[in-house]
């Protein structure tokens, strides 16, 4: 508010006295003129205040940037980000399943081959020590042929390994998408800080959510959590301190 102009001045007292005289004399024209003069004192103050408030409001709005950017964020960028993150989930899910499939297919082939190889190794050593009979040797040579047949399965294992290799492309794609979302989060953060400053709310230091019932999910190295363990060793220590 602009400073209140002093009301009780000799000028104003004189004006009011004149006004009284005019009214008593029935001099309407002069009386109206004096009343106008008196009200204008008030009005100029009012207009000045209004003007100042309008200017402040205008500045605040333009500083805050209620241009297109914030509504664009709410209408487009944030729903977009949600879609992007959902896509990240489906991409990582796809990659994990592809990898698991390839691994699950390959493990039995590998274990069978390694099992057979160690059996053949034993038989071969017996052979070199001349401990095998002719019949046993025939069986061994049959086993070796069978083993060579089985090794054809290794082509499948190699293909599966290539599948696993290719499945890792998700890291590049999802990395790029997540970076975009991080940029958006940063932008939203800046706008929110602006909004808080505009409303004049004091910036309180963030309170930590200490409720035991809330689950933190996977720990993130750069984010400090109170009263957490880091790693299996600390879990084991904690449990053994409880008599486990």
């Amino acid at each position, binding site marked *: 508010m602009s400073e209140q102009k002093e009301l009780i001045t000799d000028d104003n007292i004189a004006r009011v006295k004149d006004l009284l005289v005019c009214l008593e004399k029935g001099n309407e024209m002069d009386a109206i003129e004096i009343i106008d003069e008196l009200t204008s004192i008030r009005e100029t103050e009012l207009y000045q205040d209004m003007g100042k408030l309008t200017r402040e409001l205008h500045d605040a709005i333009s500083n805050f940037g209620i241009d297109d950017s914030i509504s664009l964020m709410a209408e487009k960028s944030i729903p977009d980000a949600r879609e992007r993150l959902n896509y990240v989930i489906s991409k990582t899910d796809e990659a994990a*399943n592809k990898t*698991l499939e390839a691994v699950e297919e390959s493990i039995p082939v590998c274990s069978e081959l390694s099992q057979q190889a160690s059996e053949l190794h034993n038989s071969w050593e017996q052979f070199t020590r001349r401990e095998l009979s002719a019949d046993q040797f025939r069986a061994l040579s049959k086993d070796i042929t069978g083993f060579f047949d089985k090794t054809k399965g290794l082509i499948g294992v190699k293909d599966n390994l290539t599948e696993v290799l290719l499945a890792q492309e998700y890291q590049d794609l999802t990395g790029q998408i997540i970076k975009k979302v991080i940029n958006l989060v940063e932008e939203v953060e800046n706008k929110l800080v602006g909004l808080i400053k505009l409303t004049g709310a004091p910036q309180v230091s963030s309170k930590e959510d200490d409720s*035991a019932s809330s*689950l*933190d999910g*996977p720990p993130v190295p750069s984010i400090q*959590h109170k*009263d957490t363990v880091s790693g299996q060793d600390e879990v084991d220590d*904690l*449990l053994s301190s409880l008599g486990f």
Partner: protein
Amino acid sequence: MKILVVDDFSTMRRIIKNLLRDLGFNNTSEADDGLTALPMLKSGNFDLLVTDWNMPGMQGIDLLKEVRADENLKSLPVLMVTAEQKKEQIVEAAQAGVNGYIVKPFTALILKEKLEKIFERIG
């Protein structure tokens, strides 16, 4: 040895099943949260429960409490495999009667050790 693996992520269930198979446990079943797991446990003659904590429906800790409160299931060994690392939560699980607590990410060796420890203790 019949084992029930409970996790809301199918990939994690698959990983655990594969690791268990590697350790010689071939008879495994899966459930995606406590609500589906509990009726399976009640009718299935399982020898071990491996469960995540944070799941929709019924969480792992509540499943553990249900198991301990059930006359037929109360002595079933329960191994928790979870990303939750708050001390309070580990203590809560211990008090609820968990037999082992593994934090993710974990290794095949840790799973093996914890299983051995559980079976050693129950003899």
